[in-house]
């Protein structure tokens, strides 16, 4: 469904991605783990069109999308929920969700998806008219994911959804991610919380200094002694 072929990304003089190749198949949860600065976010930013790859290919349903504008990529069904939530703080929860559905014209479908998001995150419904900036960190993360779902993505790119959340909320967010996946959305998940990410992922890639150092079924990756030592705390 999604394929990255030998992707190279530079930030000025910094070689951030040094030839990344990976695949995401329909209905999967693929997790991308790695230390701070390994290139996880950059990989997602390249897919969603926020940064340009210097060389290499990004194929979506077999067609290249690496030259497209970010809004065209959203239109093709790839939605990126960025690191740090990036909700629109001065707008209401409802307005944020509506912006998520910016490219859609099907009123009925939008309404149904809004109900679906409220069902996943009942807290958002309670706070529908509240300014998003007044939400707690966990609620903001729910809003960021909900807003992403409003675009009706086929592939959801999640960047550090558990960042800065209390353990109970982290569990809640990961439960919902699995639920979204079971409802038919493919997920590419970037996480520092490797433990949880490998538990819900089907397959995993390990990124180190801009290079993929390991790939495989999530359980195998989780069982690897080196991964255990470096990312899972023993």
């Amino acid at each position: 469904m999604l394929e990255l072929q030998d992707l190279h990304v530079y930030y000025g003089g910094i070689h951030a991605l040094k030839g990344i190749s990976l695949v995401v198949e329909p209905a999967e949860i693929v997790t991308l783990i790695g230390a701070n600065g390994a290139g996880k976010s950059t990989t997602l930013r390249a897919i969603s069109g926020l940064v340009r790859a210097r060389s290499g290919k990004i194929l979506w349903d077999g067609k290249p999308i690496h030259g497209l504008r970010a809004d065209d990529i959203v239109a093709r069904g790839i939605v990126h929920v960025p690191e740090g939530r990036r909700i629109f703080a001065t707008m209401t929860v409802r307005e944020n969700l509506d912006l998520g559905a910016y490219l859609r014209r099907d009123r009925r479908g939008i309404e149904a998806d809004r109900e679906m998001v409220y069902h996943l995150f009942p807290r958002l419904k309670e706070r529908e008219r509240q300014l998003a900036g007044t939400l707690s960190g966990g609620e903001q993360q729910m809003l960021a994911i909900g807003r992403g779902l409003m675009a009706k993505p086929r592939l959801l790119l999640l960047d550090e959804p558990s960042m800065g959340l209390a353990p109970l909320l982290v569990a809640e967010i990961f439960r919902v991610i699995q639920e979204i996946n079971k409802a038919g959305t493919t997920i590419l998940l970037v996480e520092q919380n490797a433990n949880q990410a490998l538990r819900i992922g089907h397959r995993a890639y390990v990124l180190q200094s801009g290079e993929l150092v390991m790939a495989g079924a999530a359980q195998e990756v989780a069982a690897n002694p080196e991964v255990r030592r470096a990312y899972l705390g023993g």
Partner: protein
Amino acid sequence: MAEVLQQLVNGISLGSIYALIALGYTMVYGVLKLINFAHGDVYMVGAFAGFFAATAFGWGFLPALCFAMLVAALFGLVIERVAYRPLRNAPRIAALITAIGVSLLLENLGILILRPDPRAFPELIRLETYQVGPLIVNNRQLVIIATSVVLMMLLQFIVTRTRMGKAMRAVAEDTEASRLMGINVDRVIAFTFVLGSALAAAAGVLVGIYYTRIDPLMGFMPGLKAFVAAVLGGIGLIPGAMLGGLAIGVAEVLVVAFISSSWKDAVAFAILIMILLLKPTGILGKTAEEKA
């Protein structure tokens, strides 16, 4: 007391004009973080478009106003496309210098094509004065205030209720996150220039009616004052521009009436210095939060 009230009426008329110009500054700043110094000259273009609509076509107030807004909107669109869009990823100072360049270009083209001497703006609205208690109000002031109020309500509607308006607010708050929503940011920026330029043109026509004289350099000083108004209210904030415009207009008129007319232009800049010293984010601006 009656004298103060009288000057307040005059100040509000002048202030609505500054507010209309200030809105364009603040909206463009919102989406692009650029002070568009050519904005005052777009206001001049609007005034002349209104002038020609009235003199060459013999149109009345409303058609001339709409024509001026349309012409200026077109100018705004072209300026954005030609001068600013190629600099989207350039350092901000490059765009700022370009804005000053566009301003000089428009002013000098104006002198070349429209001639430098002032022209009498046609009498689109025949002057009538009314006595309201101790106050003297004329119908031109009422038209200025009414037109401004209607345009600002229209703007408010566009910004809060329409898809494009919501996209504008989104881009102003977080451009990158907006792109992830599927918003075509370039199109939103172009739309913002169209909107801001049209409002400036309306101000140009209203000034023509109020002061009855226009010239190619007329945009310079009101442009700067409207910029001060936008900063005073809180740059990037639409209600701030409205408030700031009114405040600058009233302050200017009061200073002229009660201190000295030679302070007419200085007062705006005195206010600018004070706001920058006391509350740089403007009256309605919140103290900027550190971004993680």
